[in-house]
């Protein structure tokens, strides 16, 4: 009986440790889209630090048979706190790898390789943590007062581990189910677009790397306090793959899924194989275990890529409505009138209170040039954009329209030349800061956040949300809930204007091409741009609707919003854009109203020839 009780206590501790690790990795991978293939080094680092902080100086203790650094002999819970802090610090050297410029799979490979390297270094460099033999006889917390071998102690330890795990669960849930969590998932789905909407992708990734590192470090501390030894063999790079398998099986982007995965994969495998009788080939069972992990990964990714407990779809529209003051009946009738775009007035919705009479220069480029592989795509383009007007950018295919737009928005760095926004040189300003200062762009290719609902897509773009930061998210719904409900209401109003209410809670990735364009336009408007850069916004949109959108843009411009629009459709240009800039072969060919341009021979030729 006693043996079973001890066994149970062990399982509880392991289960809690694995769950904590999987919860942390899931926040990085499932929510923030950060493939941390080096996750195990954070757990290992925490375990080592907790060990050496709780052990005495090495010469005196244990007869000096093992070497290690520190040896501060701290009382619980200081070693555990130290482990969590160390796990967070360990994230800092990897920040460069998760910057926004590196492909996700390259960064993952970098982390994987770092895990291999660190394991080898710790393995070979004995003075640090006693090399390959590892550290042993790590004192359990309070081992002076209580007997760590006692059943009561073991169950108490398991209890503490479970409590910590539950705390981690609620902390992470509080964070992910907030506007900040929405921004994390937006970044996961499309980091370039999240960046263009003003999210600081680098800071978000860094925060998640540090937070995950701290939790991983803590989990390592809990583990080492229980098993009392820690060696490089316990944290090979492949252990990270086991944790990934757990999350893929349980369900990425779902906290309960992470816990379920932890109980099924790392814990399940370790415990089930314990009961397989020894075979003639001692390598067989461990080898088959790894094969099973590999098959689990491939099988689940193919047959059930969302895992056993898939990510939950966030239904915003229902619970949002009651918490907002219901408008008087007359107004609400107007809102219910679906798709009545021409009757909508977005000026108030977008908090637009510009001065319509000011048509000064808001945005200008000076000899802007961009080359790819030595081929100049945009060459010395100097243009001036007037405030409160819709400026059109036209030109044949390959004229450099989209490239110019991308450089203005900061998505693409110019090879040479400068950009001025309200008189300030912003050439080297990152795109997310440009977005925060009011420059919002849309994309030619599909750019919706696929696994965010339509409503979430829209709300995520609204600037200055108090719940859209790590600290704000932790302050809880009481802090940001009312404001978020208002934001959802604003987004819903816009959705009604565009006649897409019935899709409010559908994943944006499932919409038709035209609908996705509308989502993108709505999202860009909700970002409350001072200057809106649209890259072929009407492509794939029904002509009637395109004209209604054009009318709306005209009204917004009349209220002071500046709009730059790349468009192929000359009818749109005729109707809405003034002035129009013609680009051909990367240069500015002409500029003026459409009727002026139609009279120019070189413009007509460029279009006909191009």
């Amino acid at each position, binding site marked *: 009986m006693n043996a079973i009780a001890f066994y149970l206590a062990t399982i509880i501790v392991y289960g809690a440790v694995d769950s904590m690790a999987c919860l942390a990795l899931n926040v990085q991978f499932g929510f923030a889209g950060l*493939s941390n293939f080096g996750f195990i080094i954070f757990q290992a680092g925490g375990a080592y630090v907790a060990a050496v902080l709780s052990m005495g100086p090495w010469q005196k203790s244990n007869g000096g048979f093992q070497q290690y650094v520190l040896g501060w002999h701290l009382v619980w819970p200081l070693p555990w706190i130290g482990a969590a802090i160390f796990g967070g610090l360990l994230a800092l050297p990897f920040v460069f*790898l998760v910057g926004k410029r*590196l492909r996700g799979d390259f960064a993952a490979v970098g982390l994987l*390789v770092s895990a291999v390297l660190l394991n080898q270094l710790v393995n070979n460099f004995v003075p640090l943590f006693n090399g390959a033999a590892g550290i042993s006889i790590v004192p359990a917390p309070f081992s002076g007062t209580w007997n760590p071998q006692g059943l009561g102690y073991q169950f108490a330890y398991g209890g503490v581990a479970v409590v910590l795990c539950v705390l981690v669960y609620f902390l992470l849930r509080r964070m992910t189910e907030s506007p900040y969590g929405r921004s994390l998932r937006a970044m996961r789905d499309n980091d370039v677009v999240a960046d263009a909407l003003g999210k600081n992708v680098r800071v978000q990734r860094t925060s998640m790397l540090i937070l995950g590192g701290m939790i991983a470090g803590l989990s390592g501390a809990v583990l080492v306090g229980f098993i009392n030894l820690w060696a490089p063999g316990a944290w090979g790079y492949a252990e990270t793959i086991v944790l990934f398998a757990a999350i893929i099986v349980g369900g990425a982007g779902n906290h309960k899924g992470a816990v379920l995965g932890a109980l099924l994969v790392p814990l399940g495998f370790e415990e089930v194989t314990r009961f397989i009788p020894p075979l003639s080939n001692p390598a067989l069972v461990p*080898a088959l275990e790894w094969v099973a992990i590999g098959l689990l990964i*491939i099988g689940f*990714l193919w047959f059930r890529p969302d895992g056993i407990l898939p990510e939950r779809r966030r239904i915003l529209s229902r619970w949002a409505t009651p918490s907002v003051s219901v408008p008087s009946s007359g107004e609400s009738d107007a809102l219910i009138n679906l798709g009545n775009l021409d009757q909508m007035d977005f000026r108030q919705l977008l908090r637009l209170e510009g001065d319509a009479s000011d048509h000064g220069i808001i945005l200008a480029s000076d000899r802007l040039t961009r080359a790819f592989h030595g081929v100049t795509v945009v060459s010395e383009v100097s243009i001036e954009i007037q405030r409160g007007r819709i400026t059109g950018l036209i030109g044949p295919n390959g004229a450099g329209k989209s490239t110019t737009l991308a450089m203005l928005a900061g998505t693409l760095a110019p090879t040479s030349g400068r950009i001025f926004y309200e008189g300030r040189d912003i050439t080297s300003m990152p795109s997310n800061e440009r977005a925060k200062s009011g420059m919002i762009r849309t994309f030619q290719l599909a750019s919706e956040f696929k696994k965010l609902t339509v409503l979430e897509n829209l709300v995520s773009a609204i600037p200055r949300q108090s719940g859209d930061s790590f600290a704000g998210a932790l302050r809880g719904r009481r802090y940001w809930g009312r404001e978020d409900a208002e934001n959802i209401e604003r987004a819903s109003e816009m959705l009604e204007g565009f006649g897409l209410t019935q899709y409010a809670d559908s994943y944006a990735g499932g919409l038709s091409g035209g609908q996705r364009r509308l989502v993108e336009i709505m999202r860009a408007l909700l970002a409350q741009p001072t200057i809106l850069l649209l890259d072929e916004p009407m492509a794939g949109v029904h002509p009637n609707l395109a004209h209604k959108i054009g009318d709306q843009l005209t009204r917004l411009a009349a209220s002071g919003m500046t709009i730059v629009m790349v468009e192929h459709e000359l009818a749109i240009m005729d109707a809405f854009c003034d002035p129009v800039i013609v680009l051909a072969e990367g240069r500015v060919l002409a500029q003026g109203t459409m009727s002026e341009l139609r009279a120019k021979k070189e413009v007509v030729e460029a279009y006909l020839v191009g």
Partner: protein
Amino acid sequence: MSVFLSSLGFGLISAAVLAIATVGFTMQFAVTNVLNLAYGSVMINSAFVTYYLNYHAHLNAWVAMIGGVFTGAVASYLLNRFVFTPFQRRNLLPITIVIVALGVDLCGTFGLQAIIGGSYFSYKQSLGREIHFWGMYFSTLQLIIMGICVVVLGLIHWLLKYTRLGKAMRATSANPNLARNSGVRTQRVISSTWLISGALCGLAGTVFAMNTGVFDATSAQLYIVLMLAAMFLGGPGSAYGAMIGAVTIGVATELSAGYFNPQYKEVIAFVVLLGMLTFRPYGLFGSEKTN
């Protein structure tokens, strides 16, 4: 001076093996955009087919090597055809493919271990006479491996530069959609690439095992790190970059082993890889793909 030359000798032989492996690895990345982290497991399985033919079918190791090359080609082709391509058709993120590749690697490596057990193996093969010149020492075996390397890389150069298939490969690598629209039968190009790169993988596995002397199922597990370092140094997807990268990494690791501590000889490869990923992820000579 003698430390330098003898280390350089070791470096050249390491570089020869690494070059064969990395060129295959980088070709797969170039044409299908797959970071095939299962490459090492295909290598070691091929090496074991060679071992089987050599030890149990009593073939000369060099003849048995043909079986290893064949295994690498077929296994890589099947891997792409039945694992990577179906996953890629689902339009998943590149990272999903990498995770799948890691899963395949576990299956390949430990599946082999489950069959052959955890013990070590070596080919029935003589190292040949030891030859030394300019202060460098080589066995005949090592000279043959280097000769094979030179011939194979020459063939790859000829393939890429002067054949229709090579041009189609480069076109597919630069822009698959444009290549398809210009009449390149990209599916066939991709299949051919995986067959050829797989043959290189099988060859690399066998010469790796020959050069190491003794090997087990997990011997090539970390070899992928050296290959990644060589590939990123020369620019991912570039066969010539891989050759230059492999020579650099091969020589640099052995030189650092000669001058510092052999235990840390791979550290330089790690440092190179992390440095390249941080500062120049598209290689010393490459530039970012623009699609």
